């Protein structure tokens, strides 16, 4: 009989299922970054002057900034002049007017990924915007949404069609001065999704964006902006994959959410970028800034994320609780296996009165993975009777991985309350044996225990996504226990 340590250490690499490359002709900028590249990107998108200027300001500001070194992750320095900042599938003529004109190879790609991009697949009931490398290749259900006054389109399209809305809100939650990667994104962002839900409208379906990096040496910098007007409700899903490549690829996205009076935005992510191989070669560097502003009274923003991919994740979906009685939530599952590193968490900034926030973070570490939770709860003087509850649980599989927790709490008034609970546990040999003794295989036992551990987060996900997330977790940890 083998000893327990051997059982738990038997690491086998599960092959990354989405690692294929699609062979499409691309229109790419030369590697490197300078003002001309920024202008080129803007010109490719036929952007108005104000947008180009905004990008250039961001670029110039970026030049003055330093890459942050505080995250608990390690990687060789990134050469920003080696990356390609614009790559698009080559279009015939002026580009697709409708999905029928989209290159069939692209549609096939999304088919393989299981993304319902064709409108005939109505049963899926999810409106999808798909972003391939740098450009949006098609948005489904546009017409049905338009009937309710909902705008759901690619970011590029929004700049051209809805400039007033974009101008009014772009950079109001994440200004280009915010941080190094947000500045870089603001200069070179290529596409992303834009969504506006008008007053009093409850979006009738889940909105979804699917991001795919395909081309080699390409950075992906999408930008998402979602605005829920007074009393509006929207649930938004985001999914990501990339091919397997030996080089690291950079993904630096920005997501801004704005919730006005009594509106609600629910943002769910299942991030499954290529994590690199079992030796730690390749994989996506995922440096993302996501922030929501609860601008109106009684508004609510809820982030749910399941992070299983990427070589390095650096991401803190946050809420600024400005409106009185507003609510912020953060539910997270972050998995690291092999050599993956994740430094993720949230910031809850309480400004309005009676604001509430909830943080539930579940970190799972296997292999030699390093998982850090970093969270800030800041309660300003103005935020009378604010309340926060934080729970950070870590689960360790094997004995070569790490879990770290960095909670920061600042409270500037006396009427507020902050609670923080943290636990660290290992999948016990006795738990596995108990499951084995009931007839379950060790792999099934681990999946069951891990899913149980993540339950509080999974139940926040929309149903289809929850099922997907559970499967994904199983795949990510496959072979983590021998």
């Amino acid at each position, binding site marked *: *009989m*083998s*000893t*327990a340590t051997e*059982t738990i250490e038997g690491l086998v690499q599960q092959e990354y299922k989405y690692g294929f490359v699609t062979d499409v002709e691309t229109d790419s900028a030369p590697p490197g970054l300078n003002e001309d590249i920024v202008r080129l990107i803007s010109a490719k998108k036929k952007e108005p002057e104000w947008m180009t200027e905004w990008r250039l300001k961001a670029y110039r500001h970026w030049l003055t900034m330093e890459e942050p070194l505080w995250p608990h992750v390690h990687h060789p320095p990134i050469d920003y002049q080696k990356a390609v900042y614009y790559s698009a599938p080559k279009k015939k003529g002026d580009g697709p007017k409708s999905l029928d004109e989209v290159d069939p190879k692209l549609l096939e790609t999304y088919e393989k990924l299981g993304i319902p991009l064709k409108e005939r697949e109505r049963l899926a009931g999810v409106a999808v915007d798909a972003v391939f490398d740098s450009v949006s290749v098609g948005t489904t259900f546009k017409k049905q949404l338009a009937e309710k006054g909902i705008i759901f389109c690619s970011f590029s399209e929004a700049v051209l069609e809805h400039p007033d809305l974009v101008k009014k809100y772009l950079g109001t939650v994440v200004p280009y001065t915010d941080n190094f990667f947000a500045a870089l994104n603001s200069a070179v962002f290529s596409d992303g999704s834009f969504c506006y839900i008008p007053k009093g409208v409850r979006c009738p379906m889940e909105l979804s964006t699917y991001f795919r990096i395909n081309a080699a040496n390409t950075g992906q910098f999408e930008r998402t902006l979602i605005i829920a007007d007074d009393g509006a409700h929207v649930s938004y899903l985001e999914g990501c994959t990339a091919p397997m490549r030996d080089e690291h690829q950079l993904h630096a996205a920005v997501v801004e959410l704005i919730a006005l009076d009594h509106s609600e935005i629910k943002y769910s992510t299942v991030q499954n970028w290529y994590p690199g191989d079992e030796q730690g070669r390749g994989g996506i560097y995922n440096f993302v800034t996501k922030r929501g502003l609860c601008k109106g009274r009684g508004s609510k923003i809820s982030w749910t994320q399941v992070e299983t991919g990427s070589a390095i994740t650096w991401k803190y979906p946050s809420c600024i609780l400005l409106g009185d009685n507003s609510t912020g939530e953060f539910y997270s599952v972050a998995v690291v296996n092999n050599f993956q590193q994740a430094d993720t968490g949230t910031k809850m900034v309480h400004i309005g009165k009676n604001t509430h926030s909830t943080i539930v973070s579940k970190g799972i570490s296997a292999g030699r993975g390093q998982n850090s939770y970093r969270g800030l709860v800041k309660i300003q003087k103005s935020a009378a009777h604010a309340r926060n509850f934080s729970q950070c649980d870590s689960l360790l599989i094997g004995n070569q991985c790490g879990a770290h927790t960095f909670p920061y709490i600042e409270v500037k008034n006396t009427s507020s309350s902050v609670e923080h609970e943290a636990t660290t546990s290992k999948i*016990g*040999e*006795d*738990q596995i*044996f*108990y*499951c*084995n*003794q*009931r*007839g*379950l*295989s*060790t792999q*099934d036992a681990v999946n*069951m*225990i891990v*899913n*149980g*551990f*993540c*339950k*509080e987060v999974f139940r926040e996900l929309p149903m289809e996504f929850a099922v997907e997330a559970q499967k994904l977790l199983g795949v990510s940890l496959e072979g983590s226990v021998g």
Partner: protein
Amino acid sequence: MSEPILEIKNLNAGIEGKQILKGVSLIVGPGEVHAVMGPNGSGKSTLAAVLAGRDGYNVTGGEVLYYGHDLLDLDPEERARRGLFLAFQYPVEIPGVNSTYFLKAALNEIRKAKGETELDAMEFLALVKDKMKLLELKDDLLRRSVNEGFSGGEKKRAEIFQMAVLEPKLAILDETDSGLDIDALKIVSQGVNKLKRADNAQLVITHYQRLLNYIVPDFVHVLVDGRIVRTGGKDLAFELEAKGYDWVTKGEPVPA
């Protein structure tokens, strides 16, 4: 005599180099209830652990046959799928995993191994309701996570409930009576008695005689220092209770 379910032949086993079982032999036939009694440290729980296949125990000699096949060669899950069930002395908590879901997965593994079709949720719930009555369980236990936050008595009852659903061929009850008050003890043992059939067997491991007031064994074995020093009928248990374990270790003759 029909083929025995379990045949333990001169079993030697230990943990971390320390020999605990020093030649245990035991035959359990269908329809039989065997009690293994012994003082603390005599090797009772080691016997249960080795039979169930817990990691970390080394078998240094002897063999164990289960329906005539080598049991020790099988993984723990394979033993379970073939009908060997261990009611744990300390049932393990699995936070967040729903008890019903867990038990359904377990039952379906066993059914798959037997070549039977898996039960769907509705069929499973019908089965569960039936078995619940047997143990006078509150159904909220099934909605909770596996053993999480259960009292000692609830855990033991849940073990017997699992046993009722999984219908093992050989059930090993490892100190199921420990930590139970007299009412819980009655319920648990009544459950066990109801699960007794002509084609299955029970191996009841206990320190005290009191469980045997409710579960009547066909055979009582006294395990001392890794050896079965005496085997008898149910009366042996009463004598042990009256005279203490010293009585067997000092080798006084058994009164007729």
